[in-house]
């Protein structure tokens, strides 16, 4: 119901403006994808059914996602358990884990694993010298290994949170009733933390299905959904986007199903998680402490391998694809900063613009959704969460298909690059802004208005400053994830608009690992420096909104 008083306030008009923007840049591209698969004289679905490679790609994606989800749970849950419940030597470095997943772009992980275990990799060559022949890293072996080490931290973080929130008095109660400690734990704790584990596992599943960088670099001849989608997009070029839309639709439907399942699990889990006193970690020493400490440190060190390899590679002499390990040079760095600095400049500009616009938009729209509800705001909420169901590849296809020509031609502009980053990261900014706004009581705003401050001025003078810290941390997270974005931007970029990630990806494709390392190292610096400045100088808790 819209009242006359609503028309006088600015909120309804702002809501409508936001709705138009979301309709044009999210709904319209998605609608284009969904309809393009059956448009014109070609039906993508019948072609898909007749195409064994396409069907295999879908099946492989499901298998890969299931396997990686399992391995991530197998590593993430025990690691979470020991860190939440025990104290042991080396535990503090495990605190670095969330940071690592956030700051290392997937393309770099894939690259560095390749540099270590690929055909010409450091470890491969070393083992070959002593007579051990490793299986080829391309295909299942590489995909599962790299994705496991990239994604297990999501399970780890989710499980740690659940275990820390678990009321350990329940466990003690079970013990006092006569069950053994181990059995009480299984019986009492597992059901309570299971929803969190499942939710994070499903998140991993969707990320694997949508994964582009690692799949492209390591799948080689193995058909995978995200790879064939991208290849269809490239090969269809300016022609009717039939097959790419078909594959993209499959991906959207798959991810949507998982997200609904996830939502259902989380909503059920909410009743079960008891607020209470978490158990204090107990020290564990002796040989068991040593084993746990070593195992945990091993996982963390393996996660850190990319950083080390890339730092070395960036300063290593190379001739074409051949790395001359042990010979040092500054030539690679010179190229990044002096000979070909365009990717660096582009990354800074595009990610900067996407962060700025994204954060302002999220803050304003979240404010409308939470504090100024009207007939339009629920739609703002639904539409702005659509990108959660879109992999980067799908989003890229949507943007290209929608804005290639026609009434709003954006192809080749910087705008479409910013748009790709902006839309892809919008849900994260929105989620963080909404969480903070929920914690600002309505009475604060009413106090300001009652003191004579008009509504809009109240928003800027009172609400925005209170959202400040959360906005800052969301801005930094948006920045880091925008800088490392690849899958959407690689579809919408055109010559001269390469970002650092695109550049790294292309260099890996040409097997120029030294140059790739140099760009990669700069990429990591661009990500890490703002985090360090924010936490050390401005004392912002960057991971608070995570």
């Amino acid at each position, binding site marked *: 119901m819209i009242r006359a008083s609503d028309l006088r306030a600015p909120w309804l008009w702002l809501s409508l403006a936001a709705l138009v923007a979301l309709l044009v840049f999210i709904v319209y591209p998605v609608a284009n994808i969904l309809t393009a698969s059956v448009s014109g004289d070609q039906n993508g679905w019948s072609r898909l059914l007749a195409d064994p490679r396409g069907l295999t790609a879908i099946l492989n994606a499901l298998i890969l996602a299931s396997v990686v989800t399992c391995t991530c749970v197998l590593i993430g849950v025990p690691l979470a358990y020991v860190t939440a419940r025990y104290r042991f030597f080396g535990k503090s470095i495990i605190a670095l884990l969330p940071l690592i997943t956030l700051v290392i772009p997937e393309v770099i992980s894939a690259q560095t694993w390749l540099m270590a275990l690929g055909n010409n990799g450091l470890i491969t060559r070393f083992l070959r010298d002593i007579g051990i022949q490793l299986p080829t890293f391309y295909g299942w072996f590489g995909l599962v290994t790299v994705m496991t080490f990239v994604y297990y931290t999501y399970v780890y973080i989710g499980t740690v949170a659940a275990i820390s929130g678990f009321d350990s008095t329940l466990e003690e109660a079970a013990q006092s009733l006569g069950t053994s400690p181990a059995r009480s734990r299984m019986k009492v704790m597992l059901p309570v933390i299971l929803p969190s584990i499942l939710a994070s596992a499903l998140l991993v599943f969707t990320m694997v299905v949508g994964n582009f960088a690692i799949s492209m670099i390591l799948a080689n001849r193995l058909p995978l959904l995200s790879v064939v989608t991208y290849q269809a997009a490239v090969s269809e070029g300016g022609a009717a986007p039939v097959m790419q839309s078909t594959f993209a639709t499959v991906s959207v439907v798959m991810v949507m199903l998982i997200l609904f399942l996830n939502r259902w699990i989380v909503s059920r889990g909410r009743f079960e998680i008891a607020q209470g006193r978490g158990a204090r970690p107990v020290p564990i020493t002796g040989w068991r402490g040593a084993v746990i400490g070593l195992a945990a440190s091993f996982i963390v060190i393996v996660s850190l391998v990319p950083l080390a390899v890339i730092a070395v590679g960036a300063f290593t002499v190379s001739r074409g694809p051949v790395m001359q390990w042990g010979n040092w040079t500054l030539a690679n760095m010179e190229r990044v900063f002096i000979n070909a600095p365009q990717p660096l400049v582009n990354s800074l500009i595009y990610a900067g613009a996407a962060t700025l616009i994204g954060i302002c938009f999220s803050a304003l729209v979240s404010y409308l959704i939470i504090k100024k509800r009207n007939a339009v705001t629920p739609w703002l909420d639904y539409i702005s969460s659509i990108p959660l169901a879109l992999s980067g590849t799908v989003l890229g296809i949507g943007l290209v298909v929608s804005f290639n020509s026609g009434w709003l031609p954006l192809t080749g502009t910087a705008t479409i690059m910013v748009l790709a980053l902006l839309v892809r990261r919008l849900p994260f900014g929105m989620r963080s802004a909404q969480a903070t706004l929920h914690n600002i009581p309505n009475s604060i705003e009413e106090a300001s208005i*009652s003191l004579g401050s008009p509504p809009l001025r109240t928003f800027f003078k009172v609400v925005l400053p209170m959202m400040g810290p959360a906005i800052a941390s969301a801005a930094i997270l948006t920045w880091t994830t925008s800088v490392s974005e690849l899958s959407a931007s690689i579809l919408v970029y055109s010559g001269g608009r390469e970002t650092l990630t695109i550049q790294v990806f292309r260099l890996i494709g040409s097997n120029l690992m030294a140059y790739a390392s140099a760009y990669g190292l700069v990429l990591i610096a661009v990500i890490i420096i703002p985090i360090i400045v924010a936490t050390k100088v401005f004392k912002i808790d960057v991971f608070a909104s995570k």
Partner: protein
Amino acid sequence: MGIDIKNLYVNYGGMDVIADLSLTIPEGCFFTLLGPSGCGKTTLLRTIAGFVQAAKGNIYFQSQDVTRLPPHRRNIGMVFQDYALFPDKTVAENVAYGLRARGESGEAMMKKVRHELEHVGLGHVMDRHPAALSGGQRQRVALARAMVIKPQVLLMDEPLSNLDAKLRIQIRETISDLQREANITTVFVTHDQEEALSMSDRIGVMNKGKVEQLGTPKEIYATPRTAYVADFVGAANRINVTVAEANADGTARIMLGDAAILARNTLTGTSRDGILIMRPEDLRLKPRTSAEMQGLMGRVVKRQYLGGKTSYKLALPDETLINVDSHGDDHDGFEIGTDVIATIDPSKAMVIAS
């Protein structure tokens, strides 16, 4: 500046929360809205403030119709239950906020801020942030912030309910003093009858979106017009009775078993059935003697010693239970099982329509 509310309707999603409410609050009056949870007190207050839109009816400040005026132009001061201080601003900046919104600045403004804060006894915490204040201090800052803009109307929604008992009494006095000095029309919401009785010039007892009775604290307490008001303001014994004899002097004679009791009669017309209302502290206990036939015959079934008084529960012959509070020397002198007689001054008991 007086407040006039004429035939006000407010609804949420089609349900009337306030229905046909009319109310006049004279200038300078400390007016309290008293009522149980969910009766619409907050809704009425927020409608006066302008945060809730009336579906029908009008609100006037003096003679100005403010029904459609947005809240920031109504020149009101508001004090909230949760203080609603701006957490990122200092105490001084919180108090200065309303002045800045009115275009004031500089030393002249700071002087007002300092003066107002000293007035509530907080001159020494000007540069602190709200998080570094106690609950009582926070509510004083909120009060200073509302008063410094010299509002036409002061609105407070349960400002004391987050404070502990001692502080509540202190801040009560602060509020009363400030209100009297500024002679500002005030609407105060509470569901605490002691607060209402002690602070108000006038009280409106609300029930289901309507004002059930309007009057001074004494009128509300001593002559409740309905059983609901009698029950809500102070404790009351309610017994369904039939008047045996309506006397010309305005008293009614009621028979309870063999004993008779006199009470003020408010029944009109020919109606004889009503509710007898008696407050526990107005009843006097005596040992029963056979001659005495004026009062309520009862037997002590429960006794609670409370220091300054003793609370008894008596069972009447028909097993109805009533409460009696006994004061004075030896107030706990009746054992359980004793037969007693409870008497009451006819001006303190009354029969009202059921």
